[in-house]
C-alpha cells in the first residue's frame, strides 16, 4: 500500500525527526527545511514506483542530505553525487543511519528543534506559529487560517520569528541533564499554549482552530515518546486528550459555549478519554506531582462522572488546593472556588474569591463566577452588576451570549409572577 494518503501520513510523521537530524547536519534551519522538502518530492515520485522504504525517516534524512550536498556541489561545478534514483538499494546506508538514529542524540535533535521555537524573546503566539511551521510542517496558509490573520501577515511573522531565533544562535551542543529538563519544561509550556490557542476558541472560530488542539496532542505524544518516564509529559498529554475529548459537546449549534454541567456527555469522545485516563494512571504511579498532572487529574474526575451530579467535587477541591500550592495564581483560586461552592456552598466560595478582585478586575471569568455565586445567594442586584461587567470584558461573542443568558434568567426570576 503506497498510495498518496499513506505517503502523506508517513511524511508528516517523519518530519520532526528528519528535519531535526538535517538541522544537526547543516546547522541551518532554512537549508534543513529545503533538504526535507526536496526529499519529500523525491519520495512522492519514488515510493509509488519502488515501494515504501523499510525506514521512511532514515530514507528522507539520507536523500535530503544527499540532495542538498548535490546542490552545493553542482553550484561549485564539481562532480555531482549519483542521483538517488541511481542508487537502487539504500538498504546498507539506511541500516547504518537507522543505527545512529536509535541512539539518544536523536532525542536531543528533536528536542532542540522544538526548543528553538520557544525562544524567550518571541511572544507566545510566534513561538506557536514557528513550531507549527517548522516541526509540524503546516503550511503558512493553514497557520494563518487557524490564527485568523491574512496569509501575508503570517508569512511575515514567521519569517521574522525565524530570523530572530537563528540570530540568537541555535544551541547545538548536547545538553546536560539539568538543561535538558529545562528544555523539556519550556517545550511542554509551548505545547500547552498551542493547545489552549485552539481550545479557547469559540463560535465560528472553534471549527477552524480545532486542528491546533490536534497538533498539540501530536506534539505532546512526540515529546512523551522522547521522554517516556516524565510524569509531567504524561500529565500534559492526558490533559490535552481529556479536554479535547469534550470538544464536540462544548459548542451549541449557534456557536455558544456550553458549560460542563450542561454538556451532552454522550458526545464526549470515549476513546480519547480512555487514553487520557490511562496516562493519568501511569503518571500518578511516579508520585512526583506537577501542575499538568494535577490539572489532568481534575479533568479525569470530570470525565469519569457519567452525570454532572456524580462529579467528585471534594476531590476536585483537594486537587485545586494542590495546584494552588504548586502553581499559585488567582485564576487557580478562582477555579477552586467553583469546586468549593459545590462542596461548602456559595457563601464560602464567595469569601474565597473576594480577595482576588484587585488582581482579576479585568478578567471575564472572575465576574462570571462572582455573578453566578451572588445569584445563588439571592443577591440579584449585585449579580446583575457582576454579569454586566463580565459582558463588557468578554473576549468573544459566545462568552458574552453565555452571560446574557444568565442575566435573562435573573431578570425573569426577579419579576413578580
Amino acid at each position, binding site marked *: 500500500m503506497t498510495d498518496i*494518503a*499513506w505517503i502523506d*501520513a*508517513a511524511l*508528516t*510523521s*517523519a518530519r520532526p525527526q528528519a528535519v531535526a537530524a538535517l538541522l544537526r547536519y547543516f546547522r541551518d534551519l532554512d537549508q534543513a527545511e529545503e533538504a526535507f522538502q526536496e526529499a519529500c518530492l523525491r519520495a512522492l515520485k519514488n515510493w509509488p514506483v519502488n515501494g515504501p522504504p523499510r525506514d*521512511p525517516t532514515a530514507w528522507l534524512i539520507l536523500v535530503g542530505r544527499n540532495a542538498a550536498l548535490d546542490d552545493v556541489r553542482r553550484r561549485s561545478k564539481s562532480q555531482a553525487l549519483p542521483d538517488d534514483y541511481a542508487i537502487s538499494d539504500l538498504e546498507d546506508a539506511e541500516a547504518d543511519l537507522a543505527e545512529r538514529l536509535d541512539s539518544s542524540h536523536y532525542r536531543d535533535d528533536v528536542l532542540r528543534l522544538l526548543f528553538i521555537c520557544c525562544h524567550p524573546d518571541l511572544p507566545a503566539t510566534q513561538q506557536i506559529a514557528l513550531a507549527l511551521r517548522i516541526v509540524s510542517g503546516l503550511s503558512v496558509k493553514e497557520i494563518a487560517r487557524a490564527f485568523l490573520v491574512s496569509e501575508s501577515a503570517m508569512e511575515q511573522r514567521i519569517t521574522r520569528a525565524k530570523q530572530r531565533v537563528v540570530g540568537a544562535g541555535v544551541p547545538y551542543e548536547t545538553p546536560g541533564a539539568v538543561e535538558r529538563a529545562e528544555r523539556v519544561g519550556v517545550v511542554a509550556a509551548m505545547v500547552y499554549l498551542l493547545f489552549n490557542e485552539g481550545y479557547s476558541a469559540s463560535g465560528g472560530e472553534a471549527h477552524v482552530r480545532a486542528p491546533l488542539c490536534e497538533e498539540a496532542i*501530536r506534539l505532546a*505524544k512526540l515529546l*512523551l*515518546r522522547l521522554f*517516556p*518516564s516524565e510524569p509531567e509529559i*504524561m500529565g500534559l*498529554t492526558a490533559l490535552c486528550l481529556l479536554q479535547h475529548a469534550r470538544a464536540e459537546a462544548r459548542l451549541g449549534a449557534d456557536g455558544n459555549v456550553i458549560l460542563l454541567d450542561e454538556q451532552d456527555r454522550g458526545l464526549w469522545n470515549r*476513546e480519547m478519554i*480512555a*487514553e487520557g485516563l*490511562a*496516562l493519568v*494512571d*501511569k503518571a500518578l*504511579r511516579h508520585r512526583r506531582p506537577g501542575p499538568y498532572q494535577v490539572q489532568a487529574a481534575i479533568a479525569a474526575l470530570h470525565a469519569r462522572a457519567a452525570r454532572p451530579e456524580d462529579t467528585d467535587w471534594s476531590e476536585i477541591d483537594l486537587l485545586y488546593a494542590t495546584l494552588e500550592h504548586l502553581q499559585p495564581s488567582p485564576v487557580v483560586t478562582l477555579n477552586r472556588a467553583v469546586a468549593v461552592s459545590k462542596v461548602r456552598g456559595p457563601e464560602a466560595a464567595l469569601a474565597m474569591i473576594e480577595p482576588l478582585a484587585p488582581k482579576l478586575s479585568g478578567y471575564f471569568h472572575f465576574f462570571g463566577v462572582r455573578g453566578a455565586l451572588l445569584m445563588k445567594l439571592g443577591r440579584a442586584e449585585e449579580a446583575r452588576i457582576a454579569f454586566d461587567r463580565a459582558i463588557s470584558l468578554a473576549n468573544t461573542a459566545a462568552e458574552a451570549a453565555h452571560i446574557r443568558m444568565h442575566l435573562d434568567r435573573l431578570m425573569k426570576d426577579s419579576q413578580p409572577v
Partner: protein
Amino acid sequence: MLYAILCYHDEAAVGAWSKEEDAAVMSKLQVVQQRLAKEGRLGPVARLMPTTAATTLRKDREQPLIIDGPFAETKEQLLGFYVVDSASLEEALEIAKELGGANPGGAYEIRPVLVLNPGTIAT
C-alpha cells in the same frame, strides 16, 4: 487450528491519519471481521492504545523492574498474551508480577486496550 494475527504498523503514521481516514480503514476492516464472525471463525480482536500508554515489566530479575514505555528489545520474541480486567494500572501490574512469579524471565508489556471485540469462536 487457531491462529493469532498480530498487527504491526508505523504508529506515528497511523497516528497521523485524520479522523475520517481512521474511520474509513476501520469500516473496511469491519466488513472482513463481520464475515468471519458470521462464519464463527473470529476470535477476540483488540485495538491497543498507543505505545505512549504502555508500561513494561522486566521479570528477568529478583525484583521485577517497571519501565515506562513499550517493550523495545529484539532478543526476546512474542510468545503469548493475556487480556485482563483491572481497575488501575497498579492492579494490572500486580497481576503481571504474579504471573511473572510463576514464570520468571523475559518481560511483559502492559498496554491498555482501546477496543475489544470478544469474537464468536466456540472452543
